[in-house]
């Protein structure tokens, strides 16, 4: 009986955190899907989103769940500008140039934040942080749903659904998918592909920043917080298939579950090791992703 409650508790924890991983990873997948560029600096936008939400909370008293929208808007425009100046010149360039431009960006952003904000850890305090819903309570133990994680999960769900709606039900979304499939043909159909690239990059980093902001109630912000999420993010995206937005959702939830279940059997320091091993194995065995559909 004890093990059953533990199982369900682990399952719930895994899904809740996995939902947030999904949203963080969607942005990365979107950027790759549309521009065919692996953005190594992507996790830094998560850090940026956390800091924007923290400043909004500290100076204007805005709850991180609402601050997330501010983070989304600000990073959307930063992303559009960055795409224009830095990413556009390397679309179609040799991969070594693409890899190292974004790796350079990673160091510039991480250490730029260190120079600007200092190495302090910053956290918020909210009324719901310490509260939890009790789903089940009995002799064998309790199953709890922490409210901060639940809210973050719901916000993640909201942003994922909005992005899905944008991509699949609006004309801009259709134009973006067309650009991703065949930029030349899209251009011939009158789509401004340069604009689509800018919006895709802006949305990609914005979504990730949004995901960063909603986890602020239970993860402290610091300039190096991005590095905790890099491998996680890439594992989620690779599990789901690079470039597939729906795959990133599946991948994110799988990563959440892998993490919470491996914590049951392994010491906490080795939690990420499981992820690394799965990551390398998936890359090797099925680099197109576990959810990949056969394309003609």
């Amino acid at each position, binding site marked *: 009986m004890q093990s059953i409650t533990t199982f369900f508790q682990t399952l719930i924890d895994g899904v809740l955190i996995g939902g947030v991983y999904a949203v963080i990873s969607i942005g990365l997948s979107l950027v790759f899907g549309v521009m065919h560029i692996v953005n190594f600096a992507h996790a830094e936008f998560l850090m940026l989103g956390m800091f924007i939400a923290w400043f909004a909370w500290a100076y204007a008293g805005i709850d991180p769940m609402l601050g997330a929208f501010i983070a989304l808007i600000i990073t959307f425009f930063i992303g559009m500008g960055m795409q224009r100046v830095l990413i556009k010149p390397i679309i179609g360039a040799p*991969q070594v140039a693409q890899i190292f431009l974004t790796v350079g960006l990673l*160091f510039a*952003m991480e250490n730029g934040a260190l120079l600007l904000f200092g190495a302090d850890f910053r956290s918020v305090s909210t009324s719901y942080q310490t509260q939890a819903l009790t789903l089940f309570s009995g002799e064998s133990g309790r199953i709890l749903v922490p409210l901060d994680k639940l809210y973050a999960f719901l916000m993640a769900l909201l942003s994922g659904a909005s992005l899905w709606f944008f991509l699949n039900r609006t004309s801009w979304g259709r134009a973006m998918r067309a650009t991703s499939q065949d930029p030349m043909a899209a251009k011939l159909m009158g789509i401004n592909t340069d604009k689509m690239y800018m919006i895709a990059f802006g949305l990609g980093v914005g979504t990730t920043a949004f995901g960063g902001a909603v986890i602020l109630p239970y993860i402290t912000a610091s300039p190096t917080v991005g590095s905790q999420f890099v491998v996680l993010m890439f594992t989620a995206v690779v599990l789901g298939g690079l470039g597939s937005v729906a795959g990133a959702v599946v991948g994110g939830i799988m990563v959440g579950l892998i993490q919470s279940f491996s914590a049951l059997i392994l010491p906490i320091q080795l939690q990420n*090791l499981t992820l690394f091993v799965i990551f390398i194995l998936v*890359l090797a065995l099925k680099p197109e992703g576990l959810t990949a559909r056969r394309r003609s």
Partner: protein
Amino acid sequence: MTRFFYPSLAVVAVTVMSLLPLTLDPQGYEIRILCIAMLFAALGQAWNIVGGLANQISLGHAAYFGIGAYTSTILLRLFSLSPWLGGILGMVLAVLFALLLSVPTVRLKGHYFALATLGAGEAMRVIANSWASVTGGPVGISVPYSRESSLWMMQFPTVLPNYYLFLIALVIICLVFWKIQTGALGFRLRAIKENEQAAEVIGVDTYRAKLIASTVSAAITAFMGTLYAQFQFFFDPDTVFGVATISVKMALIAILGGVGTLLGPLLGAAFIIPMEEFANSYFGASVAGLSQFAYGVILVVIILINPRGLVALIGQIKNRIFSKGGSQ
């Protein structure tokens, strides 16, 4: 004349480098910077064998470096084993790790290879941090200091012998790179770089070529790790297995100088290391992250100006001067 130009240039350069420390304080700061510059030039050159010639962009070479540093240091602490033997054992372990890693990664290209190697390097860092009973964990490990000076134990009262060890290592590694570059393996690797399928069609055993290149690169990197440990006397997992401190820095130096060229890593290290040291000493530890911030910016700028690095830039300038404004 050109036939003797480059070899004689190399002889002059090595002579200058061997005489230079005699004019410096053997305990001084300048000689340490030169040591680190040579260390990273050698590491950049090792990375260049795989990353430059075959275009297999590794972001996990710190795994080999750390294996080299930890193997010799742990054996020295436990059994007082000479770092020379420990270093050779480290090379063997690094080669084994490279072979193990090649099973899942040898068929990967571009982004996927970069991601997988990044993951492998990070996995080693996690292991070194959590396996505290052997590695000392996150607090780091120190090389036991013995009073007497001994080449066999690689311990010296001044930095001068370390300087010559780094110089000899750098010269050997440059010769290895040159030998590979101009030999059959170099042509095979370049064929893989241009078009792997085409290379396979004309009969290049691409699997074998990549495997040889990555094991040679891993072994060299591991031995440099041992030299580094005996030079620094103290290190921790985040330094020797670090993405920024080792993996990316190695690649950055090769790319900045000119990827796939013999001269590239030398130029890259001669530029990056003094600049980094200058920034660190000028701004001090109070401005943490400045040198890495500068790295990032330089990397971005260099790629936007000319992804082929300083060598290509020098070539462009040379062309412009010698052709008197004519076409390139």
